């Protein structure tokens, strides 16, 4: 005798399941909204405190003055020295990370067997997994005294060069993995077609895959540059807190992030101008990195559509 199930029970079950499903839907949606809310909170908090800051300091002075003496008694708030240090260290970083990252990506996508790949890729990824204080330590106590000083006598103990080099190592995985994705997206027909007209493997790698993946590669470099600009601990440890406008990468210079770290560890009571300057510098940094990320994502999207 077959067991029959009453429809009434099914009806009740559906009613109940529909309600539970609805409740969880709302929970999941609210959770998803938290990221967006966080972004809003980030911009409003920075904006609000920056507004307070700019009632004391003119935006023109902030953007054009070459003196940043926030922690002295005679205060000047010209962001250029900080911006200069941030850009210089990031440029050095990208000068290291871009070629190495792209080369690693080419190796992974064109030359490595899948076994090699499964070993090398996680190894490269660990570069980004090492805490940045460790890189800072390495820059200050090994790279500068043991690698750079022998080559460059006048090098200061804290200097932008070592900072840039270490940030460069840190961001290699960003360049490598995004470029690798872009190269993987190059259709294999293109490679076959190149071989069919007598190309060597190196021709395929350098003249077919690399150009075809170029927008992905450029995006990786832009995104990595944005990441370099936001790096704090390496700059704070090995770059020092000297907010002077200089182009000598052998000297100590203070990046925007290092300034924030310096003020945060010192005594900057709530409501003072030093406290507010944290937010102004933060907002300025965020606007730059956000624009870079925006461009980077745009470039990635354009490349994604093409194939």
């Amino acid at each position, binding site marked *: 005798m077959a067991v029959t199930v009453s429809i009434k029970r099914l009806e009740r079950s559906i009613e109940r*399941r*529909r309600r539970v499903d609805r409740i969880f*839907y709302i929970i*999941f*949606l609210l959770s*998803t*909204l*938290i*990221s*967006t809310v*966080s*972004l809003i909170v*980030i911009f409003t*908090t*920075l904006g609000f405190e920056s507004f307070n800051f700019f009632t004391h300091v003119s935006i023109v002075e902030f953007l054009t003055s070459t003196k940043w003496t926030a922690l002295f008694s005679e205060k000047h708030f010209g962001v250029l020295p900080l911006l200069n240090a941030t850009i210089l260290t990031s440029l050095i970083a990208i000068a290291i990370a871009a070629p*190495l990252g792209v*080369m*690693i990506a*080419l*190796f992974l996508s064109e*030359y490595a067997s899948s076994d090699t790949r499964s070993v*090398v890729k996680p*190894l*490269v990824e*660990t570069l980004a*997994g*090492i*805490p940045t*204080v*460790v*890189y800072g*330590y*390495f820059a200050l*106590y*090994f790279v500068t005294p043991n690698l750079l000083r022998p080559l460059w006598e006048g090098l200061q103990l804290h200097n932008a060069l070592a900072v840039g080099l270490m940030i460069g*190592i840190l961001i290699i995985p960003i360049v490598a993995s995004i470029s690798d994705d872009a190269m993987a997206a190059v259709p294999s027909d293109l490679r076959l077609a190149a071989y069919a007209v007598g190309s*060597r*493997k*190196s*021709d395929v790698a*350098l003249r077919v895959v690399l150009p075809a993946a170029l927008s992905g590669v450029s995006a990786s470099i832009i995104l990595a540059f*944005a990441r370099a600009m*936001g*790096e*704090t*601990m390496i700059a*704070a*440890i090995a770059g020092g807190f000297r907010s002077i406008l200089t182009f000598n990468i052998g000297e100590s210079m203070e990046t925007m*992030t290092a300034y*924030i*770290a310096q003020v*945060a*560890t010192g005594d900057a009571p*709530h409501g003072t101008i030093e406290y507010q300057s*944290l*937010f102004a510098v*933060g907002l300025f940094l*965020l606007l730059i*990195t*956000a624009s870079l990320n925006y461009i980077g994502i745009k470039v990635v999207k354009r490349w994604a559509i093409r194939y």
Partner: protein
Amino acid sequence: MGHQVLTGFERRYIRLRKTIDRLLPIILSLAVFIAVATVASLLLIVIITGGHRLSWNLILNYPSANPEEAGMRSAIMGSIFTVGLSALICIPLSIATAIYLVEYSKGGRLSSILSYNIANLAGVPSIIFGVVALGFLGYWLGMGRTIITGAFTLAILTLPLVTVTCVEALKAVPDDLRLGAYALGATTLQVVRHISLPRALPMMLTGGILGISRALGEAAPILVVSGLLFIREDPTSLFSKFTVMPLQLYNWISRPQPAFVELSSAGIIVLLLILLALNGVAIALRQYLIRRIGQTWR
């Protein structure tokens, strides 16, 4: 066409291309070597400098002006509290977000805006999270420069990273299974609960541990939130002042005395060992869960 006679230039050009073809893989592997060698030498130098300073004191003692006695007990406790709490906030949120994005929203406008914002959040420099947390949570909401503020900071900081892994984990579940369950009259929640989630969970937990490792290594945002680098007591509540391991290391690194530099190397070894252990746990847990979860009705 008969035999072509190559000019000297052409012959040299072909030889050059052949050489390039042979050299390119070597040059490219050199790039890999440089990257790997950097990590290796970094580890080596840390071990050489700090290996002999490893001791139980380092873990059990409070920080001290005397490098012989100084340890990072308060920092380790601070890290456990802060990062642990942040994981408790971040991982459920990430899983819920991923479920919304993959299982509930059918690729609508709202969901593409929301996932775009997650990508944007991922691009915010970590120190900004600290600055905003200090202003918004610390002062505006009055939570102070405490463990709970730090935990929320790290939770939101790692949210995009963990969410992305959770989304990928759900996307890796074959659609066949979902359709099969829907066709039997399952609701979306039931599909998630009985079909997608059990199969995605191992990868999601790996993502969670990835987030925890990231949070453990983060110094900058906590530096801004906590401000304090020298704490000589265990945290007693969520509203205690606190420091974390990378901050304690920053403090030691910044001191001029060589004894503290050695101490910081030893501390780095401890931090790296913890990270290594976490990753090992992640791999083991994953293997275990893949075998256990999703093989029976639950």
